[in-house]
């Protein structure tokens, strides 16, 4: 059984304390490292990031999650009361923008739920209930997720039970480059101005 929850700051603290954020990070890092995820804005070399202590990176994600729950959204998907996914994004003009995901195997040690239509239905309902009428997904250039999304389209598109997110409409828009800024402020260890390029995907709901 799947339950999707709009996470709160207290939820994130509990998930951190329980080690769930670390577990989700460890379940995701292989996908990060196959992509080009470079921890944008952090003034470190790729070598330094690769050698960073695990707990330091987990703390980075904790910090990011706190920001998402305070100002945007973080959705936590629980399968049989065990969190398997946190999606971070925002809603603007009735568009859901999925920016980052942490995902890990379920209690049984598998990721089979990712091929379960109901898993996607439950998440899609959360997005729609918050007003989304269209969704965008941002993926690292070179990430294996760029292969996963077309595979999802082929898999879920024909399945009638997958009836919230319309995977038949999934399309790759192309690469987008975003500029970022600290607004002229000095943040320790963070670049004041930088830009990043991502693959952008669009999908409609039923």
């Amino acid at each position: 059984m799947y339950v999707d929850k709009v996470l709160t700051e207290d939820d994130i603290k509990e998930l951190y304390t329980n080690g769930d954020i670390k577990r989700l990070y460890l379940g995701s890092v292989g996908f990060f490292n196959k992509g080009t995820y470079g921890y944008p804005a952090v003034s470190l070399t790729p070598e330094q990031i690769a050698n960073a202590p695990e707990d330091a990176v987990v703390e980075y994600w904790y910090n990011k999650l706190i920001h998402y729950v305070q100002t945007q959204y973080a959705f936590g998907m629980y399968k049989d009361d065990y969190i398997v996914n946190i999606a971070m994004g925002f809603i603007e003009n009735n568009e859901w923008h999925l920016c980052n995901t942490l995902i890990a195997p379920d209690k049984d040690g598998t990721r089979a739920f990712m091929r379960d239509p109901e898993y996607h239905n439950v998440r899609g309902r959360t997005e729609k209930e918050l007003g989304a009428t269209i969704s965008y997904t941002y993926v690292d250039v070179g990430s294996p997720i760029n292969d996963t999304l077309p595979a999802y389209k082929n898999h879920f598109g024909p399945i009638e039970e997958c009836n919230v997110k319309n995977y038949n409409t999934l399309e790759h828009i192309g690469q987008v480059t975003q500029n970022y800024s600290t607004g002229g402020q000095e943040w320790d260890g963070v670049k004041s101005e930088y830009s990043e390029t991502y693959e952008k995907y669009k999908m409609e709901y039923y």
Partner: protein
Amino acid sequence: MSGFIDNTSNIDAAEIAAEYRTPEQGVSAKSNSNVAWNDYKRMTPRANQSSNIITTASSQTMQAQDFGGTAGFTPGTRTFSTGSTKGATNTTVSGAFTLAAYDHINISSQASAAVGHFGLGAQGGQTGISLTNVASFPSGCTLTGYGTSGSGGLATSLFYIITSGASGATNWTKVHHRILQPNGVSQFGNTTIYNYTLTFNRSDFTYNGNINNNQEKWQLSFGGFSGVTGPTMIYPFAVEFE
């Protein structure tokens, strides 16, 4: 305004209860009248100082003096971002800061605001906490800021201690920071972490005796590749100055 418990020999239960009114964070608060000292066993930073792992409620006998010179805080957080899409990086201000202290470290164009509470249980106010009779601070000093700013983990962060009232550069030598986890313990997979104390030496901080609003500041870089461990601001915490 809550305060540091007197570092004297005549600490009484009422004084302890007034400061530490919520014995175990995450558990229903007790009224001041039915709190026993041992309810605070997981909270005081003084017992055993930096190695004080208190594993069971019966492992130690609490003494009134263990609370001397300590105060509890409830951290708040404000986060800021470089943008809204995937590549955004966030930085967070965490801890307890008065409006004036926050003004000094304000890292955004957003309006200034007091953060957290100088007391436990989200009580104790946001106007600071008296440092009179704490360490060697002169009478009339107030702690107006105690917390951190940073992007967490990978990048270096900053630890601030901010005072007002002509504190002087050398009126404390160490600060002990003790995290107060829910029920005194966290479980990271197979690893159990009990409340612990971090001790910081004033000599490791840089000092600025003249910041905004006649405040003084001690600042320490930590995290990233600095090799310095900073204070955790996830949980309520207790502080003691020497």
